[in-house]
């Protein structure tokens, strides 16, 4: 659990890279692509959070090995 901040930092770093390149791929104009990065990053974090939540729920319910 003490590693959590480092894991979150690594996740944020990877998320920024993915969002930046995805934003520039989607938007032909650089200014629009740059402006879209914060909104896209929030959507990325929320989406990943939902997936993580579902995985944790599954771990304690249908996929529990206890």
């Amino acid at each position, binding site marked *: 659990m003490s*590693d959590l901040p*480092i*894991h979150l930092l*690594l996740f944020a*770093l*990877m998320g920024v*890279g*993915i969002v*930046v*390149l*995805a934003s*520039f*791929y989607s938007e*032909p104009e*650089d200014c629009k692509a740059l402006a879209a990065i914060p909104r896209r990053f929030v959507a990325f974090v929320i989406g990943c959070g939902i997936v993580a939540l579902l995985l944790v729920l599954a771990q304690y319910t249908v996929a529990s090995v206890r």
Partner: protein
Amino acid sequence: MDAAQRTGRGDANVAAALTWVVPGAGHVYLGAPIFGIAAFLVVTGLYVLGIRLSGGMAFEFLQTDLRSLIAPVLTPEVGNLSAVIWHMRTYGFGPPFPRPWPEHIELGTFLTAASGVLNVCLACKAHFDARLPRGMRSTRPAPGLLVLAGWVLPGLGHWLQGRRLRGVLVFSCVAGFVALGTALAQGANLDRERHFYYWSAQFLAGSPAWILEAFWGGELVRSDLRYGDAGLAFGAVGGLLNILAWLDVYGSGEREALAHLEPAEPPAARVPA
């Protein structure tokens, strides 16, 4: 259907698909047999050289439980479909007992993987050439070459297009991810034998991954890899993100190139002496 498609040399998708199946076949279909045969010799020659150096043992790197018919689909070699099918039919996963690796197996598997990616660049060229009207040429850089440049050095394709900000961002993300991944995994990510699939993705990151592997590949792991998994993920994601950069550079490169055409021969050259 736009003007370029109406007056092009053939169906662009057919040309690209033919090239994927057999290197150079797309150009033979487009009426450029000499280029097609030369491309076949270079791309397939690279694969054959790789097979000779590796003894065809690239897929023997896979642990037994990871071996399946679709395993080659997740490697760069799949870019050269006929070669990878021949490779699997001739060598497969090898005999059911371990045997020593040939001396130059790393170089050999590098060449077979490079042949697959080169053929993807060739397919891009076939796609563009099919859309290029007869008797015309573009004044802009060829999109297939831009993709090749973007593979060799991430962001170089964008840079050559004049999209400098994108080029710098692509290089920073892709090379940064591979470098960070290597640091976190202490070089364990730079070994195809150790991490077959992660290596396959990371190979697409181009020279940053190759240079790191040339200097630090195959190093012994001497301590606990606390963030080894994160390192593998960073390296692999770096390579996969470069595919996104190739798509961007090809899409815009093809649009630009088709919008800036000129006659292939200058008017003076067409006047009989």
